[in-house]
């Protein structure tokens, strides 16, 4: 290994208006290593990588690649410098084949055929070398998410990238797919490629990286050898204070069933059946976690229970049935029955982003007679109550007149959580409680969920983060393709078994539990 870093960034700074996204960042990545960059949302990771890939121009600083200073003005320049990027949201043409996507923008000459046959050969070679098997003639839209990601990696390798940047690559993968990806990355590393892995998952950093840089509020707070650090230390570096990574909770004091679901079926507007006969129950004082890769019906389950998707089957709340299709099947009726809902998508469902924080603190409960004054809404009282809630939930900045869109993800989630929990519901539906939420706020949100459980409420938790499901739930149900694949107790199961269930594989799971 030479002493020349594959990538060296010197004093990179970048501001967007008044926001300093990157402040004097310097970093050295040695060739043939996997370098992790970890930090909370908004810490500046993506901005830094966008500068490296030529999407943004840094206000100050230099980029050196393999010992030579490069002026990366656009992505073409980045590719020419040997940098490849795999985005969190893939940039693939859905109705093109794998081959067509790979050569897109890298065609030789006006005719496609020579490029395609050349690419076919290269892809074959890459597939053998790195376990990157994808059918070159398959259409992207028919590929699984894991395979689509491989196409993104192949695209970069086809352009002869020596440096590969992956932005949150495991967010959309099952645990098995993530393991496969890591094997691919190990293989690439052995061949001398340099890899930068951007993630917010500490486990991945510990598992695969050689060195790790921590970013906080636009600054690089530390760069350490992974073997010489611990998840606790990294979390502290990210947040700036000690963080409890484990969820601290007493054993559940389980009571009677509050939410009983029998044979629930839902067909979406495209005629696709999304729920294929779900039966579950959630008892007082317990958290039922629904694990699963996103897109397997969890969203639809929440929508049906939240009152904004029709379904057949039976749902009972405190023993009495609720209307699933008729006049009394809407969000208002559900709230009246004591069902509160923190939706998965707080930007499009949980909040009206242009509304102020105080307007959002009554969203869904705005018809409550207690906050009306004659024909008008009692805005002064709502605002005062919002201020009190924001103080209790430590929402920052504690300004109820600020529009919801101006709060960070964690603080937006706290606003939604405060609204739903403070209504003292019997049942809390909560989807992806910590998606896009910073570590400091995750701790707080988890504590609030457990606190509500300990008050004897029934909680249905949906999350694609298996760690979160494992640490929060008192019982785990795994969803795959609109079915419940099985229920497990957290103490009796592990990530491997849940991962298989999440991929719809029951035989081995049955064998394991038999």
């Amino acid at each position, binding site marked *: 290994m030479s002493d020349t870093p594959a990538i060296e960034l010197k004093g990179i700074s970048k501001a967007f208006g008044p926001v300093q996204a990157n402040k004097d960042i310097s970093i050295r990545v040695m060739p043939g290593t996997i370098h992790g960059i970890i930090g909370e949302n908004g810490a500046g990771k993506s901005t830094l990588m966008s500068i490296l890939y030529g999407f943004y121009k840094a206000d100050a600083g230099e980029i050196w690649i393999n010992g030579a200073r490069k002026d990366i003005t656009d992505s073409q320049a980045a590719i020419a410098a040997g940098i490849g990027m795999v985005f969190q949201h893939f940039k693939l043409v859905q109705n093109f084949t794998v081959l067509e996507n790979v050569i897109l923008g890298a065609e030789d000459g006006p005719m496609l055929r020579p490029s395609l046959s050349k690419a076919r050969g290269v892809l074959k070679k890459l597939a053998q070398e790195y376990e990157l098997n994808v059918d070159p003639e398959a259409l992207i839209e028919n590929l699984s998410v894991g395979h689509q990601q491989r196409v993104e990696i192949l695209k970069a390798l086809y352009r002869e990238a020596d440096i590969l940047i992956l932005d949150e690559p495991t967010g959309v993968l099952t645990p098995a797919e993530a393991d496969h990806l890591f094997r691919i990355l190990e293989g690439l590393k052995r061949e001398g490629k340099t890899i930068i892995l951007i993630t917010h998952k500490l486990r991945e950093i510990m598992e695969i990286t050689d060195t790790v840089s921590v970013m906080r509020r636009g600054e690089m707070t530390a760069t350490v050898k992974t073997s010489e650090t611990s998840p606790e230390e990294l979390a502290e570096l990210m947040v700036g204070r000690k963080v409890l990574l484990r969820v601290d909770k007493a054993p559940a004091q389980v009571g009677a069933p509050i939410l009983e679901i029998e044979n629930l079926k839902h067909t979406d507007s495209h005629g696709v059946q999304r729920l294929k006969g779900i039966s579950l129950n959630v008892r007082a004082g317990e958290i039922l976690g629904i694990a699963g890769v996103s897109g397997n019906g969890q969203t639809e389950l929440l929508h049906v229970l939240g009152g*904004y998707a029709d379904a057949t089957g039976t749902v009972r709340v405190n023993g009495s049935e609720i209307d699933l299709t008729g006049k009394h099947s809407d969000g208002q*009726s559900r*709230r009246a029955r004591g069902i509160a809902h923190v939706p998965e998508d707080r930007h499009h469902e949980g909040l*009206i982003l242009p*509304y102020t924080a105080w*307007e959002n603190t009554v969203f*869904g409960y705005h018809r409550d007679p207690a906050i009306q004054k004659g024909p*008008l809404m009692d805005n002064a009282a709502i605002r005062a109550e919002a201020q009190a809630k924001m103080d209790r939930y430590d929402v920052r900045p504690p300004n109820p007149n600020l529009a919801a869109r101006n709060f960070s993800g964690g603080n937006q989630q706290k606003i939604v959580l405060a609204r739903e929990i403070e209504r003292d519901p019997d049942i809390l539906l909560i989807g992806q409680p910590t998606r896009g939420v910073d570590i400091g706020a995750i701790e707080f949100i988890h504590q609030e969920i457990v606190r509500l459980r300990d008050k004897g409420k029934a909680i249905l938790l949906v999350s694609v983060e298996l760690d979160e499901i494992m640490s929060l739930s008192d019982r785990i149900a795994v969803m795959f393709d609109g079915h419940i694949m099985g229920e497990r107790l957290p103490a009796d199961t592990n990530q491997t078994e849940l991962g298989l269930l999440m991929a719809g594989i029951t035989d081995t799971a049955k064998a394991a539990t038999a």
Partner: protein
Amino acid sequence: MPAWADAVLVPLISILLAALISAGVILAIGENPITAFMAMVDGALMKSTGWGYTLYYATNFIFTGLAVAVAFHARLFNIGGEGQAMVGGLGVALVCLYIPFPHWSLSLIFTIAAAGLFGAAWALIPAYLQAKRGSHIVITTIMFNFIAAALLNYVLVNMLKPAGAMEPATAAFPATTHLPTFFDMFASDGNPLFRGSPANVSFFIAVAACVLVWLLIWRTKLGYEIRAFGQSETAAEYAGISPVKITVVAMLISGALAGLMALNTTQGEAERLVLNASEGAGFIGIAVALMGRSHPVGVFLAALLFGFLYQGGAELAFWANIPRELVDVIQALVILFTGALDNMVRMPLEKAFLYFRKEAR
């Protein structure tokens, strides 16, 4: 960018740009833009009669502007103000012709109800089709404008036209339904204010409508739901707000507001129902709502500006050696700059504000 700049500076610069280009056009046909501008100001703002006309036009634009604004808050584009105003006029005519009133004030209560109901009814079908069938409201409201014109033509020619009359119009309304004009209200023997101008008591109804719309949109739970639905339909469904209900209710309110315009034109000015009583105000309402940022105060100010353009434009055609059509060009430019080219002004202004803030630090 601070809120005041967004609300005041952007439209102001847009108007200035429109004025500059208008000046260029006037120069190009060999006239003096300053003389032309002075003629407009003189005709629209310097005499009480001019004001009487300006406020008369502004009254129309306030009603139609509010109509478009309310629908905008629910993210519905009501282009049917024209038709809704025409049908509102029919309601006013029927009430005035067939119910005997002892006093105009009593008639006004009934005509307000009739104009609103007829206008709302005309908006109901497009609203229902949008809410239930997904038929696009822009298409259906435009079509309903044509249907309204045909309907009015039929009703006037075949049913309401007095026997022997040659003109497709109703008989004159009884004197007890005539609304007091500004001349009746404000002129004294020594000071004949607003003489000969059509501004009438319905201007105050329009101002009251501004206040009521403001209360509705920003202070009631219905307004809260309308705005929430307009910002995010998925969030509205999450909260249990029915998209069908909000679409229909917002369009009914919008149609009623457009219908109220007939108070001013039909009862207040013509004192009978004529063909094309809406005078294109339904379309100007779109520009007024866009320019006024769908806020009642903004709509009021924008309506005044368009009132000035209408009256000043008429004066221009009268006094200066400028063809009548040029007035349309000027109005079109104002609509273009304030409505369609909004971002052309906004973006550089936003950049400028960011730059100066950085410098200040």
